[in-house]
């Protein structure tokens, strides 16, 4: 899994690896220049200016002059260490219990890759022999139901029949009862993309959650906010709103196969204590892995 993530990332990053080492070699002579380079590295990863300042303050504490120029490995490790320490311990990012019905609700703003993620997730758990039902509850975007249905067919997972324009909450209601009747173990609900600033659309999601809670109180519910790696500082506002409305259980970071790093997700973890559950990194159905802090920080810094 890690290997395929790495190759997915490698093609884009080859040129950057040298740059990273160079930065430390050149800059170690001059502390200000050195800190500026780190600032640039962090800002460009979309970690945000406030988190960057926080990290730089910690870096100020060390005396770089006492190390030789070829000690850049030390600084790299040090920076990595600072970043790891800043990520707080949180609850488990993703809970699944094969004994009972598990429900995953996928939410997020438009175009982050929710539908693709839903398909990938279903495929990911296929090996675990979890009998799965995919639910296209994005009844708003034209073609969304068809998109998920294609994906489901491709991976041979059952998909709930839905018609465009129907009420998402009622689609979910039907699918819960269908899942129970068929003794399904995993229900993955793909919802319509929405900007977090539309309170009526957020209320629609809250209603879906209420329907789940009411009709499947015994199920293990994961609400996953999908944020894509190209997202900038607005990601924090997204996470705040979705957390407030739905008390999301985790974040999935998508599109890591590009040149963006998704640093805002670092800041979200740090400030809002929301864990990250999955990373995705390509168009293939297998391009998904569980989140791992070290791996993520490696991505951020490379």
């Amino acid at each position: 899994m890690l290997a395929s993530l790495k190759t997915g990332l490698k093609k884009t990053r080859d040129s950057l690896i040298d740059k990273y080492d160079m930065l430390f070699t050149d800059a170690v002579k001059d502390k200000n220049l050195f800190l500026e380079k780190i600032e640039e590295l962090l800002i460009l990863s979309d970690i945000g200016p406030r988190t960057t300042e926080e990290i730089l303050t910690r870096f100020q504490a060390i005396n770089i002059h006492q190390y030789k120029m070829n000690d850049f490995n030390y600084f790299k490790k040090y920076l990595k260490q600072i970043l790891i320490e800043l990520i707080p311990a949180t609850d488990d990012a993703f809970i699944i219990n094969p004994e009972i019905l598990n429900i995953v609700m996928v939410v997020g703003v438009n175009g982050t890759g929710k539908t693709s993620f839903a398909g990938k997730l279903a495929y990911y758990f296929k090996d675990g022999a979890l009998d799965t039902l995919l639910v296209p509850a994005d009844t708003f975007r034209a073609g969304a139901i068809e998109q998920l249905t294609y994906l489901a067919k491709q991976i041979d997972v059952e998909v709930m029949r839905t018609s465009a324009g129907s009420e998402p909450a009622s689609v979910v209601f039907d699918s819960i009862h269908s899942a129970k009747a068929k003794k399904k173990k995993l229900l993955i609900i793909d919802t319509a993309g929405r900007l977090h600033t539309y309170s009526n659309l957020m209320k629609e999601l809250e209603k879906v959650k209420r329907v789940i809670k009411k009709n499947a109180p015994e199920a293990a519910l994961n609400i996953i906010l999908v944020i894509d790696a190209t997202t900038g500082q607005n990601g924090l506002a997204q996470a705040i709103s979705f957390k407030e409305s739905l008390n999301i259980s985790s974040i999935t970071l998508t599109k890591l196969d590009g040149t963006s790093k998704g640093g805002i997700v670092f800041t979200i973890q740090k400030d809002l204590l929301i864990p990250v559950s999955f990373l995705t990194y390509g168009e293939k159905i297998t391009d998904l892995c569980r989140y791992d802090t070290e791996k993520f920080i490696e991505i951020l810094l490379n």
Partner: protein
Amino acid sequence: MLDILSEKFQSIFSKIREKGKISESDIKQSLREIKLALLEADVHYKVVKDFIVKLEEKVNQEVLSKTLTPGQQIIKITHGILTEILGEKQIKININEKIPTTILLIGLQGSGKTTTAVKLALTLKNNGHIPLLVAADRIRPAAIEQLSILGGEAGIDVFTGNINKSAIDTILEAEQWAKKYKYNVTIIDSAGRLHIDQELIQELKKIKNSIQVHETLLVLDALMGQDALRVANDFNNEVGVDGFILTKLDGDARGGVALSLRSRTNLPIKFAGVGEKITDLEPFYPDRISSRILGMGDTLTLIEKIEASYARNELQNMGGKVFREQFNLNDFYEQLKKIKKMGSLENIFNLMPFQFSSSLKNIKQDFGDEEKGLKRVEAIICSMTKQERLDPDIINGSRRRRIARGSGTTVNEVNRLLNQFFKMKKFLKQRTGLDSLVPFMRK
């Protein structure tokens, strides 16, 4: 809410204005705040650095004008440079009236190409053109269906061709079709692709080599971070781009990407996507985005209004921690009254940095018509005991009933008011939330 806003201004220039003359460290501090604001708005790191250098130069030259306070002046200069970079006029799409025009939409996955294609076609149709949409996204499942459905809704013809054919073959067929049936604009919806995906970039090159494309528009999403500029440059270098369409501007993203694009690519931003409906496409107005990037709303006007309603020490008080933590219903009522004094609520909302306006609009929604609404709020608060106003947590069900009776309102209305109050209190307390919303609020 106003106090948060004022704290923002305070941090920029309250110290400065007390002196009347600005010191070097004051300027430094202001520049730092502006740098942070730009970075919070996702303006590219290098663009921010250049911007600050330019701003510093100008500030050092100009800051001695007597009409404005120094702080206001810095903000004004900042706006000036922003507008200069963003450009003042709005640039239209090139459509030759005599020969059929072909527009190619390209971009990353999920940037909103398909929706934008339909919106653009509808805009052109409303301007008297006869557009044809071409479904050339052969990768994403159901992309063709999406375009067909949306095209149908907009009353625009969609060329799908045989779904087993390649994107290029489809486009070539569509060109013939357009000629034969006298469409005068062809809009090609291409598949989303990474700027570094060589195979798919080659496909775009091939498209541009096999037909005459008059406009290649890169669709970029306003929520994007630092990578946006690189994406734009890569697409431009590889394929050639004539302009941009910035989507998802209806959210609260500050749209710093617009500044990065304008300062580093010299290409125009032609349209802005501002909603989920097929009519939600607007020409891009550079001057409107500059306030948004700074997260300031129409700051200068708002400053004047605030100055007229608040004494300086009052503002300083409100920015403090004590005020935020002990915020009670008396304060709440005072704030509403002050805002009222500054003009109609609607106007104030429009002047506010938009991050605030959404939370304020809730208040308006809940209280309805502002004159009457405010009177009802007043009645409710006046029907409370002194203790209740200072410590609203004690207001239980029976107290709520009493207050409703006393004020001639309903328990429902009392509940709504208290909800709004607690929300605002929570908002004030939450440093994290606040920080993310208020880029200037740093000490």
